[in-house]
């Protein structure tokens, strides 16, 4: 309604003007602008029906189809994007898992290598120790054997020498068995007094 009032207010000078022209120009056929002319109504209705027919029977069905197609396409694209995203997520998860597995595997391998190395080191050390020990033992054994042999030899020689000596000194020769007994006795004595009973 406000627009209507606005029209009235704005139209005021016009109304005055009309009054004036009405008085100054008699005979001019007054046309009230608020009443439609019949012929203009006819043309206007034809023009509007042209527009309405074009839109209702041609444009609107096309627009509907177009919008439906677009909706369908966008929906399809969205669904595709969604499934692609899911796929990507799945693959990413898979890769992550693989990487985690690989990392575990690497850790395991390193750990194993470390353990193997440790084991190897220990083995080597043990073997080296053992070898050293056995070498030492062998050497000791050899030394002992050598010493025993030397002692034995020495004992024999000393015996023989002693006997020779004694024979020469005493001039009397004793039988072999008696000799040996004497010699042993003598050596025992020597050993007992010499080394303080060590070996």
């Amino acid at each position, binding site marked *: 309604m406000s627009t209507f009032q606005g029209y009235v207010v704005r139209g005021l000078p016009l109304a005055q003007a009309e009054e004036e022209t009405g008085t100054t120009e008699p005979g001019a056929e007054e046309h009230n602008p608020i009443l439609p002319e019949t012929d*203009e109504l006819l043309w206007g209705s034809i023009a509007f029906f042209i527009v309405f027919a074009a839109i209702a029977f041609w444009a609107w069905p096309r627009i509907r189809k177009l919008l439906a197609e677009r909706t369908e396409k966008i929906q399809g694209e969205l669904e595709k994007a969604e499934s692609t995203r899911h796929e990507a997520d799945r693959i990413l998860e898979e890769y992550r898992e693989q990487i985690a597995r690989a990392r575990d595997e690497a850790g395991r391998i390193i750990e194993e290598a470390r353990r193997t190395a440790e084991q190897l080191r220990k083995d080597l050390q043990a073997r080296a120790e053992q070898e050293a020990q056995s070498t030492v033992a062998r050497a000791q054994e050899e030394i002992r054997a050598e010493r025993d042999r030397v002692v034995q030899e020495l004992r024999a020689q000393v015996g023989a020498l002693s006997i020779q000596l004694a024979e020469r000194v005493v001039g009397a020769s004793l039988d072999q068995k008696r000799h040996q007994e004497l010699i042993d006795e003598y050596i025992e004595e020597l050993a007992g007094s010499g080394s303080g009973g060590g070996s």
Partner: protein
Amino acid sequence: MSAVLALLGSSRPPEGFEKPTAEIFDTACLIGSGDFCFNRIALYMFVAAAIVVALFVLAFARPRLVPRGIQNLMESGVEFVRNQIAVEVIGHDGIRFVPLLLSLFFFIFAANILGIVPFFQLPATSRMAIPAFLAVVVWLVFNAVGIQHHGLRYFKNVLFPPGVPKALYILLTPIELVSVFLVRPLTLSVRLLGNMFAGHMLLTIFFLGTAYLLAQWKTVAFGVAAFGLGVGLVGFEILVAVLQAYIFTILTAVYIGGALHPEH
């Protein structure tokens, strides 16, 4: 300064100024004469119709799924009418009225905008024919929709709105009777006519005034000012052209919606 005030204050045009009257809307017959007359307004009605049809054909003859250029423009217009007017006001069952609403919006807009298009410069809606005819169409449509959906209960719904104390019907029923069946078409048509009529009259006065004021040295400054204001008014008329098309269309939707869903 006082001269300006005197000039603005006087309701009487200055000496020698030929004031425009309502006769500027009475155009001569191009074809025929008397009661069967095809005048400038009639020509412009068909020009407006041709513009609308051409726009739709250009936009949707070979529509692309990804719109470009004019299709983009027309699609935003169509979607505006569909979403902001039909669906928003009537509801989802308003979609079937979109062709009518589209026709109303674009035809009225094209008829309005001719008022500021160079060499046309007369809105086809500044004569009562189009507003009156369209108002009658809208009146017929919303009443037909009401009867189609509610039968004779439509009139009961309109005249005796539900949810109102019975005593109020004494007051309400005559008001509803007059407002729905008489005032609605009248306001619809007169609002459109009045705006376009007044707008065209304003533009005419400003540009005739510019020419008159520029002709004399002592009023050249006023002439320049009048021209500037006139240019501003052209911009304003563009706004009015859109706005009036929009108002006419949305009120149509409101009336149809009211006939469809009386409970609102």
